[in-house]
């Protein structure tokens, strides 16, 4: 009768896959890539119900869990708990630069992604990643709540919105330039060896290039640095697309290319943002609308029948003469 967790392998619980990515959440993707870099066998599972949780992504194995909101993130938890540490080989003299680069990516570029995802776009990417599996009223309210939360985190108000936007993109531009200079034509940032810095930055670039729309300013800024784009594509081909021997998906797999958001290839990328395309209704939305109409029509018919049957049983003849007198 007792349920014991006999699964000792690692399981990464992340947000759903979209846009041709194994997980489309900008917080979950670096963890996925880190585990792939480390060649750790793991299962990938998706949490579709908790878009506003800061615990996700998390890695679990048996009764062990490393949450995203503990110990500076899942990657740091895995390092501290002795599970997997890619950073042990970072030369001590490069640690200050390495750390500050990582901090720049997580802060400046992280803010830029946060801005584009929740504030600076039509919200369709966020809808697809976080709310598409929730019932409509819940998804709508949570999206609104998350947008307000993002504005609070970014310190955006009605008065300073333009200034903050400018500041965010300026910092992103500076960060890309610095990273492009630092990377050059190397395979990784540190001595041809993957570290958590690569996991974090690769997660950022893959998200920016594949999940953000063509009209994205951040995406256009990244596309200006061809070595960063090559870095992203090469590592994606090597670690994310060449077999899935070290990871298996136990829940909805990657989206097929026939999905409503086709995968992007490098040849289709442009550095100049295109005008935003007209949004078309997906098959799911059409089906949902049709079902909603049928449901409402059925309810209306049921109410009419209910009223006519029960109202008719209580019907009495109202006489014209004054049978009822009222005294105050």
């Amino acid at each position: 009768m007792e349920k014991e967790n006999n699964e000792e392998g690692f399981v990464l619980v992340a947000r759903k896959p979209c846009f041709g990515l194994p997980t489309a959440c900008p917080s979950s993707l670096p963890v996925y890539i880190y585990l792939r870099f480390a060649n750790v066998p793991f299962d990938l599972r998706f949490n579709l119900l908790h878009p506003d949780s800061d615990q996700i992504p998390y890695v679990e194995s048996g009764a062990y869990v490393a949450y995203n909101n503990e110990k500076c993130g899942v990657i740091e938890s895995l390092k501290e708990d002795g599970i997997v540490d890619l950073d042990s080989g970072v030369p001590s003299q490069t640690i200050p630069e390495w750390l500050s680069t990582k901090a720049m990516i997580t802060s400046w570029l992280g803010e830029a992604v946060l801005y584009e995802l929740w504030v600076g776009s039509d919200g369709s990417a966020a809808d697809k990643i976080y709310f598409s599996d929730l019932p409509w009223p819940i998804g709508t309210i949570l999206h609104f709540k998350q947008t307000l939360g993002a504005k609070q985190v970014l310190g955006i108000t009605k008065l300073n919105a333009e200034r903050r936007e400018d500041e965010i993109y300026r910092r992103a531009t500076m960060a890309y330039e610095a990273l492009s200079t630092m990377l050059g034509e190397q395979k990784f940032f540190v001595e041809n060896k993957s570290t958590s810095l690569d996991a974090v930055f690769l997660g950022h670039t893959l998200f920016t290039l594949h999940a953000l729309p063509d009209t994205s300013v951040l995406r256009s800024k990244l596309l200006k640095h061809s070595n960063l784009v090559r870095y992203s594509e090469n590592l994606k081909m090597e670690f994310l697309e060449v077999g899935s021997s070290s990871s298996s998906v136990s829940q909805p797999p990657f989206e097929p290319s026939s999905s409503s958001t086709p995968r992007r290839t490098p040849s289709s990328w442009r550095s100049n943002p295109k005008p935003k395309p007209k949004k078309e209704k997906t098959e799911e939305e059409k089906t949902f609308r049709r079902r909603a109409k049928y449901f409402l029509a059925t309810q209306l018919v049921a109410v009419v029948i209910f009223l006519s049957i029960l109202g008719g049983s209580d019907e009495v003849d109202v006489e014209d003469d004054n049978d009822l007198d009222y005294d105050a």
Partner: protein
Amino acid sequence: MPDSVSENQNPQTENDNTVEEEEVNLRVHDIIIKGNKKTKDSLLETEVESLKTATTMQELLEAAALVKSRLQNLDIFDSVNITIDSGPLELPATCNVTIEVVENKNPVGGNIGMYSKPEARSYSLEGTAKLKNVFGYGDIWDSTWAYGWEQASDISVGVYLPRFKRLSNPIMARISLLSQDWLKISSYKERMLGLSVGLLSTRHHDLAYNLTWRNLTDPSQMSSRSVRKQLGHSLLSSLKYKFTIDRRDSPQRPTRGYAFVSSTQVGGFSPDSRSLRFLRQEFDLRFAFPLGFYNAALNFGVSVGAILPWGRGFMNLPSPISERFFLGGNSSPVCTLGGLTTLLGFKSRGVGPTEQRRAMIDISGNSAKCTGRDVLGGDLACSAFADLSFNLPLKVLRDAGVHGHIFASTGNLTKLTENEFQNFSFRKFGESFRSSIGAGIIIPFNFFRMEINYCYIRKQFEHDRGKTGIQFSFSSPL
């Protein structure tokens, strides 16, 4: 509530028995309603319509008694008086009916009490405030709050309409915000914002629709894997139908009769396939037999329930943890009709499948500290009890309604979903029933009912939370 039905008899009628034995033909000429300042005429007109159909005095008296009862049940009048007078002289065999109502002087009412509920973990303080007849339609608005000592419980606002236009069926609607803290037992907190609408409510049938936004969180971040998979937001759109027959002579201390409750809940009544989809069924059967001495009675009861998800791939899906069955708690099984929850002697949610919680690794990374287990509930539950109640020898105790009882209870839970039904066998299920026996005293008060029981745990399994000893429980007297 002072009220009366009186008549001015025909002075030519000499013997009261004549009225009772012979049919006196008459018809109602006029119905006069007095005293309603706020209450809408349409409501009262509809309630008294049945008087006009009376053709004899006997029928009129019966109809008058029924009208009086229905007006009293509206709970918006301090008193209801019905007087029958003879009609105009030029219209023989007619009568006039005068209905005098006194509306509530104070439309505000309420009560407060302390109870232990099977679904909560501990005792809770509950209060209700009512506002009656605000718009004159017999509408009753109530605001209810309940607070448990270790968790905030719920706040709700509801409205009851005895009639809506031509609909004779009362309509009830309630919006509630409920918060349940199961962190210590199952490592999750539950918050629900819901709307429930009573579609049909008669003596035997209840049909209600419920739309609830439910959010499960784990602020402690210690939950087991099964609970972690359930955390998040969900939409519950369900229809619940309850069929009740209660032929017992008393719901609080039945000494004869039987009761049967069948409760069916279907979740997923929504065009959105992403809402919770499940089918939940419960049966509850009770019998009471008088023994003929010391007002003693033997009560038996058996309850069975099951929940299964439905939809594509349902065999691999778990049932929603909030809808599963949990056994345990100190509420009286005799008084709790419908609802598979109580198992005396065991703590709330103290029986059934459990799972290890998250293990904390120490700094050296070598050892993991075990942090307890989460109670997961079951998809199939069964419980039964036998209770012998009797008066106590002292007259003062008998007069106060204090009585004793000896009881035995048993119950079990198991999981069926996520392909666990393949491992299910009735023999194993039967062999794993938990049981307890005990004796106690029941003390009824005006505002609550207290039980003091000594329970002895006859059979429990590892990880169950049964405890032999004295236990208290409080419940509503209603």
